[in-house]
């Protein structure tokens, strides 16, 4: 056992919130309102998350409020927390590991400081309750040519627009699926880019069925509908065409993208032969959806649902006592749902109860989220637009053909084996970008039998890259290391 005198024990807090996007900010504020001492961690150098990403303080702009939905709500939250002595906001805090407890919340390990700095400090937190508000990463489906310069994910383009005020091109096509395409296009327009059009993969029939069934249920979410309506009005004002049931199936160019091929897609997102048309563009922004960032939840021992999101109950409790999850990590639903879930999680984590108004608000936005998935969720036919030369794993440059061939040669039905014989997903991003696509493409090659260990790509005990020196400093040395075997079992060392 480590000597308690030399052990820099993890810092004790009531509620630790990981992630300072809408869910995390909402959770921190609510936990404070219920009287808990709170630490809020975020890897970025400012709070707000991806949704409220904004210019750094030294280059503020009066225009932020026009670029951001709900900007006033964000600034109010930020103000409230930054002036509150019971809440410590730690930015630049990269959480890299969660040490699972036996039947309670994990000890959370972070390195704090600039990501490229070599003098980051290591910190550990032992909280009574942990709220995981780690958000989601964007999913862009691969297509031939998607690795050309000039092809951006929607999130990257939006980040350049919101965080840097940089337009990615002069004639830009926005493609993929879901309402996120609208704010991407809108932020491009506001930075002066010419948007050639928006191409949505789902067909109108599915979109109207998904969104239009029992439309009165959406009435309480009319601010959300209003937000999307606002984007649509913007786009109409700029005469930006919106096309449903089509997708970018290839990008072309020598040194960077010069044109794209757009084809009609059927209900399962299979390209319809004969409908391919070339469009000249100098950039394309593609986004097909979002994948919950569940690394810390999995390390903490939380169960996930079939779609890979963290399972929570009505009070945002995960399956691990003392661990809560809120926002996109529990399923993709947008900022309003994230905020409501965060508030519920924060209250319950602090020992309070959410009021009926808050629960109603959350229910409303949950209905909205279910519709979003029904209308825009990724369909399996997309694998048909990938050819053998398409790079799937960009870190390790593994093509769809190599994946298919390795599956043929080894006959393995193991994702783990196929990753290790192709190196797909083994690069610096650890499959965060390509993992789900690798699974989908392998399932196409393997046929109905399929993979036996699907879902394994999300297990990443290291939630972020961390330097060896930082790992070495993270935990004090063990004193019992060189001593002979103890006479009885060492607590925690051996399971019965």
């Amino acid at each position, binding site marked *: 056992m480590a000597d308690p005198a030399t052990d820099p024990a993890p810092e004790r807090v009531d509620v630790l919130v990981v992630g300072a996007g809408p869910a995390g900010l909402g959770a921190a504020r609510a936990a404070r309102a219920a009287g808990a001492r709170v630490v809020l961690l975020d890897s970025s150098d400012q709070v707000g998350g991806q949704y409220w990403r904004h210019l750094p303080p030294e280059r503020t702009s009066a225009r932020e409020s026009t670029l951001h939905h709900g900007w006033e709500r964000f600034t109010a939250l930020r103000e409230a927390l930054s002036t509150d002595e019971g809440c410590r906001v730690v930015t630049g805090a990269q959480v890299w590991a969660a040490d699972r407890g036996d039947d309670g919340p994990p000890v959370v390990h972070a390195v704090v400081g600039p990501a490229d700095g070599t003098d980051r400090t290591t910190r550990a937190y032992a909280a009574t309750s942990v709220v995981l508000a780690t958000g989601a990463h964007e999913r862009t489906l691969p297509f031939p040519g998607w690795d050309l310069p000039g092809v951006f994910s929607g999130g990257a383009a939006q980040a350049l627009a919101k965080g840097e005020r940089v337009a990615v091109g002069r004639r830009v096509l926005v493609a993929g699926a879901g309402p996120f395409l609208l704010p991407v296009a809108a932020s491009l327009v506001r930075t002066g880019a010419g948007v050639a059009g928006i191409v949505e993969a789902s067909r109108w029939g599915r979109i109207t069925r998904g969104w239009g069934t029992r439309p009165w249920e959406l009435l309480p979410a009319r601010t959300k509908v209003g937000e999307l309506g606002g984007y649509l009005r913007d786009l109409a004002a700029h005469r930006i065409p919106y096309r449903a049931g089509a997708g970018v199936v290839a990008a072309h160019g020598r040194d960077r993208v010069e044109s794209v091929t757009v084809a009609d897609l059927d209900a399962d997102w299979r390209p319809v032969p004969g409908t391919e048309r070339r469009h000249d563009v100098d950039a394309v922004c593609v986004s097909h959806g979002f994948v919950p960032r569940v690394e810390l939840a999995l390390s903490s021992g939380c169960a996930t649902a079939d779609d890979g999101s963290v399972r929570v109950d009505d009070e945002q409790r995960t399956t691990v006592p003392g661990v809560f999850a809120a926002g996109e990590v529990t399923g993709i639903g947008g900022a309003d749902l994230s905020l409501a879930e965060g508030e519920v999680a924060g209250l319950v984590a602090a020992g309070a109860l959410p009021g009926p108004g808050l629960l109603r608000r959350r229910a409303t936005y949950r209905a909205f989220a279910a519709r979003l998935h029904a209308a825009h969720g990724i369909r399996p036919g997309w694998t048909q637009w990938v050819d053998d030369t398409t790079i799937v794993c960009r870190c390790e440059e593994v093509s769809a053909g190599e994946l298919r061939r390795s599956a043929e040669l080894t006959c393995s039905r193991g994702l783990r084996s196929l990753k290790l014989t192709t190196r797909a997903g083994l690069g610096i991003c650890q499959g965060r970008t390509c993992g789900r696509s690798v699974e989908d493409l392998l399932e196409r090659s393997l046929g109905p039998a399929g993979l036996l260990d699907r879902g394994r790509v999300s297990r990443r005990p290291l939630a972020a890259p961390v330097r060896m020196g930082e790992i070495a400093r993270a935990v004090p040395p063990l004193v019992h290391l060189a001593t002979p075997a103890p006479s009885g079992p060492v607590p925690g060392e051996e*399971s019965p």
Partner: protein
Amino acid sequence: MPLKSSRVVVVGAGIVGAGIARDLARAGVDVVVLDRSATAGGTSSSGEGNLLVSDKGPGAELLLAQRSRALWRDLPGELAEDLPADFPDLELEDKGGVVVATTPAGAASLLAFAAQQRRVGVRADVVGPDRTRELEPHLTREVHAAVHYPEDAQVQPVAATEALLASARRRGTVVRQGVEVLAGIRCGARLTGVRTSHGDVTGDAVVVAAGPWSGAVAHRLGVDLPVRPRRGTVLVTTRMPHRVHHKVYDADYVGAVESGDSALQTSSVVESTAAGTVLIGSSRERRGFDERLETRVLAQLARKALVLFPFLADAAVMRAYGGFRPYVPDHLPVIGPDPRLPGLWHATGHEGAGIGLSLGTAELITDQVTGRTGTPSAEYAARFAVDRPTLVPHLQEAA
């Protein structure tokens, strides 16, 4: 009882099962491989791919390691005839190992150990400071003794497992994934097959090669075998220019391998892969099939690795993975027929050496099952028998 032209059921599609399937198939035996999950999904995909002689003292296991090492040398040529040219590369590399003592006490025991190994034919060259620096320019200067083991090598264990299975398949072996063994089928006192999640599979012999899960499989078949998991953890850095050229260990490694202590032990094993990442092992801990990775273990691994290679302090670690080694109380593999249940055979308990020892194990099982002679396996077979004196007390305990 030669079983040529008969049928053998192999339980486990890791490297040991794959090697056995291929060797039996080459001897003309009809083989079915069953795995409850996918190929190469357990211990075989959780290690570094060690083909080592350096960590073994004189004895049966070293003989098996030396024989296996010879078989690994022949394997690429044999596979080239069996497999298409674009089959995933085995990344078999004769890189050699360097074992380093960083304390005076460690130096004395390392040099004594190397001397014993040399007497039984292991190349264990004691190297001075200049030669050490030549072999590993970025190694710490705090070296009290270093021994170069040119015979140590590395292989990509998953590619190797898949290649062995593909080679077996070419000779008629059937590999069934997602098929779990539930119970044994007996005819009188003899095991004649297994009941599975997907129907019965019969055979003249059942070979259990399920690594750390072999004890559970044996139990379902009606006998107890004291195979337990011993947890290990590996750190992987991002790609970098090659600055670690051999398998480099601190001399504690040998002690940790041979220890029966259940508490955490770590010793450094540092090496580069063909892809340019650096792997850092290895921890040993007995804690059941507990899958969680703990920062205290990662921190210990990192600290020990930094003693050997201080430059790694700024290296970015992008992945950590863990696995379970099949551990037997007397630290020797269990290879051979089970005298308590005719028809049942074991090939497990290789702990951290299963990749290296797989080919020799396969040869030994094939010799015994088919009655083949002419290989050196008779020299060491008895030492791995299920009823060897050092294991018998544990068998009684388990039963």
